[in-house]
C-alpha cells in the first residue's frame, strides 16, 4: 500500500532509490587483497537493497599437476615433451573456465512486526546476462505481499473509537485505551527492473535502466542512467547518476481532500480522484583505493519529490484545546460512521533531501570490516544519521558468519504533530504519522553464508529491529500527557538468499 513503510528498516524501501543508483558504477578496481570479492562495494539493486549477496573468492579451476597424472597418459608425455621443447616448465597451471552467461540472485525475505502489525513477505529475483566486453543486461522481479495493521494517526481515547475504512464501505472500532490501528492493510506489489550496462572506451562506463511497479493503489515508473570514469591507474572512480520517476496514487476510496473530515460510511464527499508524484534523484560519488587493504567510497545525493506526498490513509484527531480529548461525533440515525472528529492529514507538495554517505571496507587477515555512515537532511526538517557495521568472519574456505549492527536516528518533521485543536486556525500542513516523528532504531543480526561444491552460494540472515520514539512534550495537550506515547515497534527480519549461475 505504501512503499515507504519499511524505509526506516533500510530493507525493501531502498529498492526504489537503489534501482535509481544501482549502476553507479562505483566499481572498486581489484588489486591484490582488494581483488577479493568480499572487498567489493555492492551496487546491484538486489544487493544494495537487501545487502545479501555472498561473495567468495572464485579460484576458478582444478589445477592439474603433471606429476599427479597417469604417466601413461598422452597429456603427461606431451607435457614432458613440451617442457624439453621450450626448455622451461609452465609458469602457472592453467586456470580457465567457461564464463557463466546468466547469474541469478534470488532472495526470500520475511519482515514481521509484533502485535499483528505489518508483515511483509518478499521474493526477489535478479538475473544478469553477461556479454563479451563487460556489457550486461539485468532483469529484476520483486513480488511483495503486505498484511497487518498500522497506526492510522488518531490518538488513544479512554472510550472506544469508530473509524470509517479508507474504502468508505464499512467501519471498524478500536477499544478504549488502545492505539488506533487500521487493519485494512493487505496488498501485493510486483516490481520489475531492466538495466543495461556497458563500457565506453577504456575508462568510461555507462548504464541505463527502467523500473516499474504496480500495486492496486500505486503505480511507479522510473528511468535511470549513470556514467563513471576511472582515474589514477584505476585507483579512483568518479561516478554520477540520475534517476527520474513518475508515480501515481490511486487510493482505495479516492484521495482525501486536505484536512477534510472523516465522513460516514458510504459518503465520499471528502474524496477526489488519483494524484501523482514526480521524483528526481541525483548522485555523485567517488570510490578510492587507499591501500592494499582499504577501500572507501563517498557519495553526495540529492532528491526532489513534488506532487502528492501525503499519505491518503492517515489522519489526525481533532481535539479540545484544553483537555486534549478528541471531539465526539454522533453519526446520523441509521448511518454508520466515525465516533469522533478526524481530519485527513496534509503534507507539503515538495520535499528536497540531501545526503552524504561514506563507506569503508577494510581487510584484515581474511576478515572484512564494512562500516558506513549516512547523514540525511531535508526541507521538512528531518535530519537523520545512520551508522552501519558489518564484520565478515570466514569459517574455513566455504562459509562465513557476519554480525551486523545498525543504528538510525531522526528528528521529527516540522509539521509533525499529535492532534489538531478544534476551533484553532488550521496549520498549513500537519501529519501524525509516527514515521515522521522523532525516533531511534537499532537493527542487530547475524548472517551465515555457505557455498556448495557446485558453486552455488546461499545465506540465511536473522535480525531484530527495534524502533523507539519520543513525542516532544510541547505537542501534548491536557489529558494526552501520560496517555499518548510514541508507537514503538519491534520487528524480526529473516532472509534466505540463493545465488547461482548457468
Amino acid at each position, binding site marked *: 500500500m505504501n512503499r515507504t513503510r519499511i524505509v526506516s528498516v533500510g530493507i525493501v524501501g531502498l529498492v526504489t532509490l537503489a534501482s535509481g543508483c544501482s549502476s553507479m558504477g562505483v566499481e572498486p578496481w581489484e588489486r591484490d587483497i582488494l581483488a577479493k570479492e568480499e572487498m567489493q562495494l555492492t551496487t546491484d539493486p538486489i544487493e544494495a537493497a537487501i545487502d545479501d549477496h555472498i561473495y567468495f573468492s572464485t579460484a576458478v579451476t582444478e589445477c*592439474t599437476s603433471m606429476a599427479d597424472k597417469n604417466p601413461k*597418459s598422452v597429456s603427461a608425455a606431451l607435457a614432458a615433451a613440451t617442457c624439453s621443447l*621450450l626448455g622451461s616448465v609452465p*609458469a602457472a597451471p*592453467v*586456470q580457465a*573456465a567457461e564464463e557463466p552467461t546468466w547469474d541469478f540472485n534470488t532472495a526470500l525475505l520475511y519482515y514481521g512486526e509484533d502485535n499483528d502489525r505489518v508483515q511483509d513477505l518478499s521474493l526477489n529475483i535478479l538475473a544478469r546476462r553477461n556479454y563479451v*566486453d563487460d556489457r550486461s543486461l539485468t532483469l529484476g522481479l520483486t513480488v511483495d505481499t503486505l498484511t497487518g495493521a498500522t497506526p492510522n494517526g488518531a490518538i488513544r481515547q479512554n472510550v472506544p473509537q469508530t473509524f470509517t475504512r479508507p474504502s468508505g464501505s464499512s467501519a471498524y472500532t478500536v477499544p478504549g485505551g488502545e492505539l488506533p490501528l487500521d487493519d485494512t492493510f493487505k496488498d501485493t506489489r510486483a516490481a520489475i527492473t531492466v538495466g543495461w550496462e556497458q563500457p565506453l572506451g577504456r575508462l568510461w562506463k555507462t548504464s541505463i535502466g527502467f523500473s516499474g511497479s504496480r500495486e492496486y493503489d500505486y503505480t511507479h515508473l522510473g528511468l535511470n542512467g549513470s556514467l563513471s570514469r576511472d582515474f589514477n591507474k584505476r585507483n579512483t572512480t568518479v561516478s554520477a547518476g540520475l534517476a527520474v520517476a513518475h508515480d501515481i496514487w490511486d487510493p482505495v476510496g479516492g484521495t482525501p481532500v486536505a484536512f477534510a473530515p472523516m465522513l460516514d460510511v458510504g459518503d465520499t464527499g471528502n474524496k477526489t480522484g488519483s494524484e501523482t508524484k514526480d521524483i528526481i534523484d541525483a548522485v555523485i560519488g567517488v570510490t578510492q583505493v587507499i591501500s592494499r587493504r582499504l577501500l572507501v567510497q563517498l557519495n553526495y545525493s540529492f532528491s526532489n519529490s513534488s506532487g502528492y506526498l501525503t499519505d491518503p490513509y492517515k489522519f489526525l484527531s481533532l481535539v479540545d484545546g484544553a483537555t486534549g480529548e478528541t471531539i465526539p461525533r454522533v453519526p446520523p440515525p441509521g448511518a454508520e460512521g466515525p465516533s469522533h472528529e478526524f481530519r485527513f492529514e496534509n503534507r507539503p507538495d515538495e520535499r528536497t533531501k540531501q545526503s552524504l554517505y561514506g563507506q569503508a571496507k577494510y581487510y584484515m587477515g581474511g576478515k572484512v570490516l564494512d562500516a558506513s555512515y549516512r547523514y540525511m537532511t531535508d526541507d521538512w526538517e528531518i535530519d537523520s544519521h545512520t551508522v552501519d557495521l558489518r564484520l565478515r568472519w570466514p569459517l574455513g574456505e566455504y562459509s562465513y558468519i557476519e554480525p551486523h549492527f545498525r543504528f538510525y536516528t531522526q528528528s521529527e518533521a516540522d509539521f509533525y504533530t499529535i492532534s489538531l485543536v478544534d476551533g484553532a486556525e488550521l496549520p498549513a500542513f500537519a501529519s501524525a504519522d509516527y514515521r515522521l516523528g522523532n525516533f531511534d532504531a537499532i537493527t542487530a543480526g547475524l548472517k551465515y553464508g555457505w557455498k556448495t561444491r557446485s558453486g552455488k552460494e546461499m545465506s540465511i540472515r536473522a535480525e531484530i529491529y527495534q524502533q523507539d520514539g519520543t513525542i516532544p512534550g510541547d505537542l501534548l495537550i491536557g489529558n494526552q500527557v501520560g496517555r499518548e506515547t510514541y508507537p514503538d515497534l519491534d520487528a524480526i527480519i529473516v532472509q534466505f538468499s540463493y545465488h547461482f549461475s548457468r
Partner: protein
Amino acid sequence: MGAPDSARAISVEAGQGCFVGLFDAMASPCEILIESEDRELATRLTRTAADEAWRIEDKFSRYLPGNVVGCINSCDGKPVEVDEETASLLDFAATLHALSDGRFDITSGVLREVWSFDGGDHIPDREAVSDVLQRVGWNRVSWRRPVLALQPGMEIDLGGIGKEYAVDRVAGILSEAAACSVVVNFGGDLAVTRPPQQRRAWRVGIEAVSATGGKGETVLQVRSGALATSGDSRRFLLKDGVRYSHILDPRSGWPVEGAPRSVTVAADTCTESGMLSTLAILEGYNAETFLDGEEVKYWCRR
C-alpha cells in the same frame, strides 16, 4: 606457417584496461594484450613479440625456400644437419608421432598434392592417394639428432606445431620482460603470461559448443595457462552428400571420419593445448572420449 606478410608493421591501441598490440604473422592476425597503463612498455613488448614471431616464421615457413625447412625439403634425400632449435622441434614431432600411433606426422604435407580443400567436390581417386602416400611417414625418415635424412620426394611441414610453439616462445620472453599480465594471441591460439591483477580473468570468446550444449559464442575466463583450437569448419569437401573434413589421416591418406569441426583445449602451455586439440581431431568420432580420458578442459564443436 604462411608466407611472410609484406607489411611487417606493429600497431598499439588502447583497449579496456589494457593496451592491445597488433601485427600479422604466420598468416594470422596476432594480438598482444598488455595489462598496463604504460603505452611505451606496451609498444616495446609488442615489438619484441612481433620480432620473435617473425623470426620463427622466417625460419620454419615451408613457403620460404632459403630456410631450414626449405633446405631439408629440397635436398632430395641427402642428410641435413640442423641447429638446436630445429632439432628440438623434430624431437617433439617424433614424440608426437609415437604418442599418436602415427596419426600426427609432419611428413603428411605432400598429401596436399591430391587433396585440395576448397569447399568443392573434387575427391581424388584411390590410386593417386596411394601413390602420394609412398612419400608420407615419419617412420620412413632417418632422424639422429642433429642429422635428418628424408627419402627422395618427401617433405616436412612444421605448420602443425609452429604457431603454438611461437605463442609459448613469445609468452616466455614477455613474461621475463614485464611483470604485468600479458596475453599472446596468434589467430586464436593463446597463452597468458601470469594472472591479471586488475580483473579477475581475461575473457576469451570462442565459437564452440559447451559440454552442456548450447551453440554460439562461449566466453571463457582465463587467468593463466593457454588455449588452442584445431579444426576449421570452413575447410571441407562435399561430394554425394558426404562431407570430407580437411583433417587427413596420414596412415591412409584419407580424411578422418567423424572429426569435430573444431576442438578448443585449455592446458598449461599453448603447445600442449594445440597438440591435444589436434590429436583429438585426428581421433575422429572418438575425439571427446580421448579428451575425457586425458582429463583436460575442452570445448568441442561438431
